[in-house]
């Protein structure tokens, strides 16, 4: 199972995204190799921000447009939504302490904690720096 970061989902949906082709090709390759995908509610929210904000695209998606696509993504088959529980929070906070992480970077660690809580050891992302040097996971660069 491969955890998918928000940027890969947005790049897959948005044809003008600089990593659109790479993201779509990656997701197809994953399914071709019969591997399951997963994402968390946080990822869904972050993809929503990126796709509907005027900061990132000239013509941002409407909430309705984006939600319909995300629903379809969830229902593609072999895509699971995994949620963080207490263990994810404990892992995130402990790692933040160990690595002196501050500010919004805690959200990277909540993703990390969510993955470990669900036994997921691979994450596909465009920004690999978010997950560098986190033990027990493999980071797959999509770009």
């Amino acid at each position: 199972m491969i955890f998918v970061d928000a940027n890969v989902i947005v790049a897959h949906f948005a044809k003008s995204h600089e990593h659109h082709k790479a993201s779509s090709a990656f997701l197809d390759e994953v399914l071709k190799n019969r591997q399951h995908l997963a994402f968390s509610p946080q990822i869904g929210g972050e993809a929503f921000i990126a796709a509907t904000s005027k900061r990132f695209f000239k013509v941002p998606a409407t909430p309705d447009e984006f939600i319909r696509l995300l629903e379809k993504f969830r229902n593609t088959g072999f895509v699971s939504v995994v949620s963080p529980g207490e263990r994810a929070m404990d892992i995130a906070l402990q790692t933040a302490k160990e690595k002196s992480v501050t500010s919004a970077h805690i959200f990277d660690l909540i993703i990390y904690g969510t993955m470990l809580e669900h036994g997921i050891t691979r994450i596909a992302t465009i920004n690999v720096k978010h997950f560098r040097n986190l033990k027990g996971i493999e980071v797959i660069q999509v770009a």
Partner: protein
Amino acid sequence: MMTAEQALEIVRKLPEHELQRFFARLNELTKVSDDEDKWNLARRKMAELSGALDLGEQLAPAPDRETLYEDREL
């Protein structure tokens, strides 16, 4: 190639243990085929979502989480 009728005739004449083996193998093959269909369907559905959003020009590179959350007031 034999007709379906001819094939059925052969199956009908199989001894019990051979018949069981036949159906076990048939189930196996059908399962693989169903499985393949599901993965292919998933790929098709995923491909339909590719480029489904026309957001115009990308104004900033894929943001890190700090940038993503910077407008969020707590």
